[in-house]
């Protein structure tokens, strides 16, 4: 449970988590195993259309939440169930406590419910003098340890068998062996007597089906079946977003949820309960059943045009499973109660700004969560939106305001970059790296060597190198992005030579500026909008066939974010769409458009591996073009493990959370190193900066370069 007061405190806690060796290894194993089992579970299925169907059906249900609620209430009441509505967490706790009191309940057993975690139900019931026992194994373990869950599906994933054995030793009063099979059996038998004695069972629900008044529960252990069968009273606590019109909607979610959560085709048990079922220990032979619907901000959220989609979440936990940051820091540092990307967002709505303020800054924006979300929620974008809301309410930090101010004026920005070049002289010692970090950076940034600003930026070289191409195949506007313009102009020069050799007319419009992604990442929405306008104005889409960029992050921002950012601008929205349509990443242009053949290169046989930039592979769905170009260039291509995993750069992220960035980078460089390649190629100057700097610091004998540089290096020199 993350509750740090300041970003500084939060970073300190994160630092401690990074040092948790067991958790780190467990998370690494999990990240790799999850991907494989998920892929297997979805084999032969059209996942994208299933996700679309779920999103559509959830959106429809959310838009008629109150109608579904009244229908559900009517049907459930007819079947003997008492339905309650709680506006807040406190109200829900009070209702459930009252049911217990009214019925002389002494002991309560629970099956797993994130909604109950959300309202801290156990604390409340215990304060009322009730004995509360969690019966899901993982939940029981963390309850005994007085901790919150570290994963929505596997709440005790941060613990080792030895810790569990010690804990069970305390519970049973007898030493327990650290043997998982045995520990599970100990839990089975210890919990069985709790079931026998309990007066009241509390469950959550994965579905509340309006047209029959049915609740549905998905579990693997089967504890929910005992919780809803043995005690004389059953209380189900259900978030309003779990209401669906019909069984069909529930079955659709059931097709994707277990597959996405744990790679299972279906969970061991799915339980459907309609009305007050048989219960042989009550006077009338029927169970007393209550369903408590919880609002706690959900109605307002359902009506929010930007954020309503977060209520589509089916709580599969996949967004945590693939998150490179979660993998490093674990769930207790990656959510307040709800964990993972979705947790960062809903913490703000369910638990308030205080709890969300630090968390929402800890997103590296790699897009891995969005790619696996069962309900198609645009998680990275919504995390940024929450960040923006927090800043708009509390005021923007000076650093972020400064960056926004500087970026709004291209001239000011470029002047500053030029003067930075002069200021860095004493610290580069004539090398292409900053040898000593300038004062603004603390020592934790030292995990990678930072590159120096180039002597002459690309824009100043352009007039000298601009090629003349007669009767060109097509016309291209080159979008440089700031890193290549001012740090790595050589990458652009290589690309220009390659394109000219293929008879492409290249132009470099001088009025272009930063793409604006850094300010968007810092939640400076206004600056992001202004910069977008400048760039669209700088390159008239009508004058070019393509707008090509060598930076994956710029490419995805220009292509995907611009139409959204300028979408409400009556003057610029149409131009932004035309502009975005012409944007292509370098590899796609070379491969799909120019189809540069293998014969253009000499077979060097150099061993080359590849890192897929997040914004290229997930942001734009490009995975094959760069790999194919590496092969065509005559190199021996050696794929690395986890090629698609983030390198830890994330733009401004790496300066905000350098410790996490360093660990993600280290993992990446180990995967790279195992290939035995001589050259690591990627297609984003940000990734080059991170990877080259990290390899330099580690002393890895590998050259890191942009795809354009590799191609230029291996190009045949054509006589004449």
């Amino acid at each position, binding site marked *: 449970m993350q509750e740090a007061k300041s970003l500084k405190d939060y970073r300190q806690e994160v630092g401690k988590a990074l040092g948790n060796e067991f958790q780190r290894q467990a998370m690494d194993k999990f990240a790799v195993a999850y991907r494989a089992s998920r892929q297997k579970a979805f084999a032969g299925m059209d996942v994208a259309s299933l996700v679309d169907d779920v999103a559509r059906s959830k959106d429809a249900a959310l838009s008629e939440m109150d109608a579904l609620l009244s229908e559900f209430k009517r049907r459930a009441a007819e079947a003997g169930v008492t339905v309650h509505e709680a506006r807040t967490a406190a109200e829900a706790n009070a209702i459930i406590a009252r049911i217990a009191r009214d019925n002389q309940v002494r002991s309560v057993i629970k099956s797993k419910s994130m909604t109950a975690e959300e309202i801290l139900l156990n604390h409340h019931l215990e304060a009322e003098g009730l004995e509360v026992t969690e019966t899901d194994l993982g939940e029981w373990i963390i309850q005994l340890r007085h901790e919150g869950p570290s994963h929505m599906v596997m709440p005790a994933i941060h613990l080792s068998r030895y810790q569990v054995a010690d804990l069970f030793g305390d519970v049973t009063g007898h030493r327990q062996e650290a043997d998982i099979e045995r520990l599970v059996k100990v839990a089975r*038998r210890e919990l069985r007597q709790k079931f026998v004695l309990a007066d009241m069972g509390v469950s959550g629900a994965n579905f509340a089906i309006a047209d029959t008044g049915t609740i549905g529960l998905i579990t693997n*252990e089967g504890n929910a079946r005992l919780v*809803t*069968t043995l005690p004389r009273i059953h209380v189900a606590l259900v978030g309003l977003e779990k209401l669906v019109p019909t069984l069909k909607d529930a079955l659709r979610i059931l097709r994707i949820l277990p597959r996405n959560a744990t790679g299972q*085709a279906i969970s061991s048990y799915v339980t459907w309960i309609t009305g007050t079922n048989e219960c042989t220990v009550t006077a009338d032979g029927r169970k007393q059943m209550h369903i408590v619907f919880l609002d706690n901000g959900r109605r307002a959220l359902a009506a929010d045009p930007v954020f309503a989609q977060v209520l589509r979440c089916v709580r599969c936990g996949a967004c945590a499973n693939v998150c490179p940051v979660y993998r490093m820091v674990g769930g207790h540092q990656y959510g307040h109660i709800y964990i993972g990307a979705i947790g960062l967002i809903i913490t703000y709505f369910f638990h308030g700004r205080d709890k969300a303020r630090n968390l929402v800054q800890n997103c590296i924006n790699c897009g891995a969560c969005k790619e696996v979300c069962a309900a198609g929620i645009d998680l990275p974008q919504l995390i940024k939106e929450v960040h923006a809301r927090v800043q708009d309410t509390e005021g923007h930090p000076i650093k972020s305001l400064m960056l926004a101010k500087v970026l709004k004026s291209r001239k000011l920005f470029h002047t500053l970059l030029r003067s930075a070049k002069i200021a860095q002289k004493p610290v580069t010692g004539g090398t292409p790296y900053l040898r000593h970090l300038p004062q603004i950076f603390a020592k934790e940034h030292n995990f990678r060597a930072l590159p120096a600003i180039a002597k002459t930026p690309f824009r100043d070289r352009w007039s000298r190198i601009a090629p003349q191409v007669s009767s060109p195949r097509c016309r291209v506007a080159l979008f440089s992005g700031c890193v290549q313009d001012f740090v790595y102009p050589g990458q652009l020069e290589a690309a220009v030579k390659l394109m000219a050799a293929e008879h492409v007319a290249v132009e470099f419009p001088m009025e272009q500026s930063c793409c604006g992604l850094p300010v968007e990442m810092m939640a400076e929405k206004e600056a992001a909008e202004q910069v977008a306008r400048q760039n669209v104005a700088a390159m008239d889409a009508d004058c070019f066939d393509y707008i090509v960029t060598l930076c994956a992050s710029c490419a995805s921002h220009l292509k995907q974010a611009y139409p959204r950012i300028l979408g409400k601008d009556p003057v610029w929205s149409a131009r932004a769409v035309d502009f975005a349509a012409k944007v292509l990443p370098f590899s796609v242009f070379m491969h799909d458009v120019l189809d540069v053949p293998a014969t253009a290169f000499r077979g060097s046989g150099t061993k080359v591996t590849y890192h897929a930039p997040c914004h290229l592979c997930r942001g734009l769905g490009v995975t094959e073009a760069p790999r194919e170009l590496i092969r065509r260039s005559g190199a021996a291509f050696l794929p690395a493990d986890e090629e698609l995993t983030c390198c830890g750069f994330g733009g401004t992220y790496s300066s905000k959370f350098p410790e996490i960035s360093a660990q993600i980078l280290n993992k990446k460089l180990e995967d790279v190193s195992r290939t035995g390649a001589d050259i690591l190629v990627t297609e984003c100057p940000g990734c080059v900066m991170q990877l080259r700097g990290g390899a330099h610091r580690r002393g890895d004998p590998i050259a890191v370069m942009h795809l354009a540089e590799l191609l230029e290096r291996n190009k045949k020199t054509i006589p004449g």
Partner: protein
Amino acid sequence: MEEPHALLTAFQTAAENVSAVVSRVHSMEAAICYAMELCETREACQLLVSGCESRLSDPAEKLCDHKQTKVLAAPLISEEDIILMGTLCAQNGVRLVRKGLRDHLAGIDMGFTIADFGIAETGTLVIDSSSEDVRLATMISEVHVAVLPSGRIRQTSYDLEEELRNRFGTAPNYYAFITGASRTADIERVLALGVHGPLELHILVLEED
């Protein structure tokens, strides 16, 4: 729709993938004999399987002491089949219970049920568990043996939507989708079977001629 045979094969493959033991039988008698033979091979109270070797807290140990003989619960068995099952149980010293399973919460060795439907895609059994005894027989037993008439297998859950929707419509009711044995991976993500429910699931597909 798929051929009946293809459905059965698909069902079997999917169920076996999640550690269910699937066999085909040609009569209810054969199913009952299968269950009795399985029951015979197990120690009373499944001592070894469910872990009596680990010492527990006093209240938990006490609950365990309540159970001394082998118990077979068969809440759904027909009047016709009970004669055979009763005879076999008596021969083998097994106590047969058809109702009042709450008196056996210390543990039931075997639960014997008849499934309403099967879902081939996931190897799932669909069992009307509105009766408390059916719920308990399928939950607190160490081994669950379920008979599934082959004609009741459908391809996916969608093919059962209408049927189930109608059944849910006549409240109260309690339906269970059961796929494999009770499982958990809550400790170090290591799969362990039988955390709360049965440690084994045997499915007998009944192909009547």
